[in-house]
């Protein structure tokens, strides 16, 4: 279940894109390394921020993920699945975490991570409740633009996100 959250967090962290009316669209490039396969995969995608929801989609995939605070919707063609986030607090926690980073809510971020900033790069060390999955998180923001975001997982998987434009 965490995987859904991770990507959402990562993608949303890249949110410094253009604002059209009430929608903010962020384009990103993603690089994922899987230790189990010893392989790296690259993808492109975009995150759309609406007033009441967040939408995520990849360039070469028709699946759309929508987060509205209480549920996470996953739609592929006519197939729609729903995850009740009240029953999946861990997933919801990651969305909250993203919002904390994106809107610079330090208090919330400090609930889950210890923060260190050096040479413009922020390192987040997770508290023990999420430390079982995440080794650490690093990101660099230039204004509202996300330079990079790197998540090192406990199982040695790695995710690198870069905002493309």
């Amino acid at each position, binding site marked *: 279940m*965490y*995987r*859904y959250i991770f990507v959402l967090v990562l993608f949303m962290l890249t949110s410094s894109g253009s604002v059209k009316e009430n929608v903010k669209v962020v384009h990103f490039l993603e690089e994922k390394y899987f230790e189990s396969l010893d392989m790296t995969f690259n993808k492109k995608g975009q995150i759309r921020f609406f007033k009441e929801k967040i939408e995520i989609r990849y360039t070469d995939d028709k699946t759309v*993920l929508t987060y509205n*605070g209480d549920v996470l919707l996953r739609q592929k063609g006519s197939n729609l699945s729903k995850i009740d986030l009240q*029953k999946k*607090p861990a997933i919801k926690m990651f969305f*909250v975490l993203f919002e904390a980073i994106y809107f610079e809510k330090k208090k919330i971020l400090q609930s889950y991570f210890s923060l260190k900033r050096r040479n413009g790069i922020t390192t987040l060390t997770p508290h023990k409740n999420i430390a079982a999955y995440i080794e650490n998180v690093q990101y660099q923001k230039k204004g509202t633009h996300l330079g990079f975001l790197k998540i090192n997982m406990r199982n040695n998987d790695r995710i690198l996100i870069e905002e493309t434009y």
Partner: protein
Amino acid sequence: MKKPIKYFNFLFFIISLYLLVSLQSYTHFSTSLFSILPQNDTKKMIEGFQQTQSSHTLLVATKGLDNKALEKIKKIEEELDALDFVAIKKSHLNRDLIRHQKEYKLLIQEVNLTKLSTLEVPLELKKLYDEMTSSFFPVIIDKIDPFQVLNPPNPIEIKTKNGHLTLGNYGYLSYFTLGSQNLNEHQKMYRDIYKVMKDKKEIQFFSPLFYYVENSQAIRADVQTIIYISFAILLVLYFIILKDILLLIHTLITLATSTILAMVILTQMYEEVSIFVFIFGISISTVAIDYMFHHYLHGYYHEKKKLNTEVFFGFLTTFCAFFILSFTSFMLIKQIAFFTMVTLSISYLHFSFLYPKIGFKEFTLNKMKDKKENTFFCKLSPRIFLLFSLILIFLSSLWIEFDFNLKNLDYDNKRLKKTEHFFKSHDTLHQNVPFVVKAKSIDTLIQHSKTIKQKVPTAHLPLSGQMSQVSYAKNKEIFTHHQSLRERLLIESRQLGFKEAYFDKAYDVQKPLIMYTAQVIRNYGIEVVKIDDYYITFGTISKKDYTQVLQYDFIHSLSIKEHFEVLMQEYVQNIGVLGFLVIMMILVIFFIISGKNFIYAMVFLVFPISMMGVYAFFSSINILHLFMLFIILAISIDYAIYMSRDNNERTKKAIHFSLISTFAGFGVLVFSQINALFSLGIIAIIGIGAISILLVCMKDKYVS
């Protein structure tokens, strides 16, 4: 006043005071309802639960789910976290426990046999590979159970917003662990928390520990008030009646000595004595003073006389009544009975044997206005009273209801109950009911916990996530039987591109059985308590599933009401039987003394009972009502004895004084906020009122 014996009363008082201080008897008095519960397994289990973290929790809620409310609760968290005995509860997770549960999950968790038997390794592996390479999200592979054939444990539904816990839709919620271990520490913790919350009126906060502090404070304040009122009333009353300062001082000293010695003796018998016993002891001293009134008014302190047999039999009846009632298993009544036997005995010995030696001025009738026989009231025959009483008793049987809820005897802390209800009403999680799992060994305890978890998957039972001998053997057999699963996984995964040895730990059950000790379990953050030769652990469950699990004989309720309701029914029956014996004893003593007139004696028994029957129309009857009724009957028969033996003006005066004094002594209990004391007081008032009616309105014996 020159003989040394004249100072014996003071000497006894000093000795009793010395014993009280040196033995620190006053420290054994408890305001807790627990002190009146029998020391059985149930009490031990509830006490065990009260020592756990679940009971030592503080809940704090701010209204609203906006940023302002979030900042507010964060600030409160910081302030409270800085206090002694208060620590914010950040996570329920224990790293060692998670590591252990992960490593041994194949031998701990329940296996989905349907999935296991229909599973196709190449297909599942392909699905896994596709998910990793094409999914939106990084896939976290479970190296031990990559195909998820184990049923995952049900997580607790925790509601959050902006990364913070919420209390339903009300606002943000914070949990704190309270580390205070005794009443003094609880009080400090309570004061500190209230200091922080002083100016934050809109914040809701609650801890079960607050009941200890607030109830204790309320009971102590209540007891203090009753003592002051009682002392003031009795002092004025005795002064008006006796008009002899020296006798008044001696009497007060005797009553104090008897009460102190009763305290000393009782606290040597019991580690914990209810403070209600002490209050009752003060009230019962107003009965003890009867012995002085009768001796004094009949000139026993002025001239040398033989033993006053009426007083002796009066004392003997009351003493025997308490002696019989002391055989009850209800601790409060047992303690009261012992306390009373000691106070009455000491008072009787003083008033009967010491006071005549000391010698006091003669009480003369002309000190009072000699009243003629009261002709205002029409005196009725005892037969009419008897008939009237029996009809009332029969009628009251139609409406009488018993209250077996032990909690109804305690102080009713309405304010705190309201706050507790506030938290429960806003979140279903707080509505869950706690329960106890009991077993002779840790392994059986784990297996019992697993049985419950299997029956009600939503039950929160931390110990169910451990390995038992049964789960170990069962899962080992399953995976050994499906050994091909592991073999195929190792081969096929390599062919598909997974790293060599990546799934080496998958479905490998070649691990030894772990026999946990209680300490190991505790180190995992799971509550296990050893009581005598068995272990208990705790869980919570929704109200609708609660009755389902209670059907197992290893599951026990933590509700005082539920547990002691059955026990209270037994106690009430027990008191009924003992009360019947008291009545029999009273009748026997009455017949020994007065010989005849059965009806006259019976009226003194049935009329107070019928009056309580009337009271039962307005209120349900509890065990203390019944207890007090039998006490009243024992006192009532004293008056019947006095009247039947020596029915002169002095006897009537002595009885009137006794009634007024007893009425004042027990009457003040109706001002109590504590139902236990109120119950005693109301029955005392009704009973003494009934006796007064008999003395005023009933024709004297032999006149019927």
